[in-house]
């Protein structure tokens, strides 16, 4: 399987998860499918890419921009890095959805937070956390 194929398969997998998360009803089984099916598959893909390709990159590492750039110059490791984003962003998105449901956030207001997480990961997480902080201040829950 070429890095391009893995890239597009992984991207489609993540896209499916995000569509379900943003549009579908929050059935328990669906959340479970996203967590263990889709995110599980992405994580397994990542693990295999790391097992097989990571240590082949001469001069690669996490210690400097140059080392990280060297890693990303290598297609399989670049795809691994991409899958890392996809898996973790979707995991965070699922957590936001479950947490927001628990707090009774309207789905229309959840959508922008989820889209922001889909596109820019930590930005969406920040939106959700700041919203939640605001909510806690304005409406303190009883313990």
């Amino acid at each position: 399987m070429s890095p391009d194929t893995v890239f597009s398969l992984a991207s489609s997998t993540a896209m499916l998860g995000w569509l379900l998360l943003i549009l579908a009803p929050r059935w328990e089984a669906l959340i479970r499918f996203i967590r263990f099916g889709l995110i599980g598959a992405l994580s397994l893909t990542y693990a295999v890419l790391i097992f097989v390709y990571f240590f082949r990159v001469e001069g690669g590492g996490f210690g400097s921009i140059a080392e990280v750039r060297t890693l990303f110059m290598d297609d399989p490791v670049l795809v691994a890095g991409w899958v890392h984003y996809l898996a973790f962003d979707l995991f965070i998105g699922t957590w936001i959805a479950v947490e927001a449901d628990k707090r009774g956030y309207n789905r229309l207001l959840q959508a922008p937070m989820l889209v922001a997480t889909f596109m820019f990961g930590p930005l969406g997480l920040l939106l959700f956390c700041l919203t939640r902080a605001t909510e806690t201040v304005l409406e303190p829950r009883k313990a």
Partner: protein
Amino acid sequence: MTMLFNDSVALAPSRDLAAGEDSVRRLLIVGIGLQLALAIPSLIALGIDERLLNDISVWSKPLKFQASLALMLGTLLLLLPLIEPRTRAGRGVWLASLTAVVTASGEILYITLQAARGRASHFNDSTPFEAMAYSVMGAGAALLVLSSLVIGVYILMRPRPGAPTGLRLGGGWGLVLGSVATLFTAFALGSGEIGGRGHWVGGVRTDLGGLPLFGWSRSGGDLRVPHFFATHIMQALPLLGLGLDRFAPGLARPGILVGALVSIGVVVATFVQAVQGQPFL
């Protein structure tokens, strides 16, 4: 299996006993989980990674170790209920289990890391780090078999009242003999004193074309053969005991004695065979 090992009817353990036992079980279960979690990506990597060590896939070794370490921890988990409840919930069993799980996890993490790096884990002194890691692995392996030895001794010395004779003797002696025999065979293998560094004695120094599944050399002696038979006494004798309890309970004692002698005989014979440079098959 569960039925056979279930002792919940015989006693109503206090809360502390149950908690102590539960923490031991959880240790072993998490340890098994980690082995299997590494085995799944390793298995896929075996299919796509073209890198070789000794002319076979770099992933062949981690898979064998993941399987056998999961099996070993699983054996301890299944045999644990043979120990008398108070002892089972005590510190000794907990410490032995913790040692087994920590060392088994350490071994497999390094073996898997080295496979991912495309480098040998055993017999690799080529960098200071790898030399250090190889000697730490030796110490870890010794502690690992020591922990199964301790569990075995507990089963023999402090058995649960009413534990079936065959399983108790098979489980206890299986762990004791399996551990001691592994200590000898694995350290004879790891010392590099027999046939030079590596598991080969004579023959072609490659793992290509080895015995299917096991990978043992077919052109010369292979010191992994006695190591394999020694280590799996830990499963063979309890299984024999289980069978004796079921089909010939009166013969449990002599049956386990014969089984133990045969097991040791197989280990000695395959060891002599390997030292003489003869392939197993």
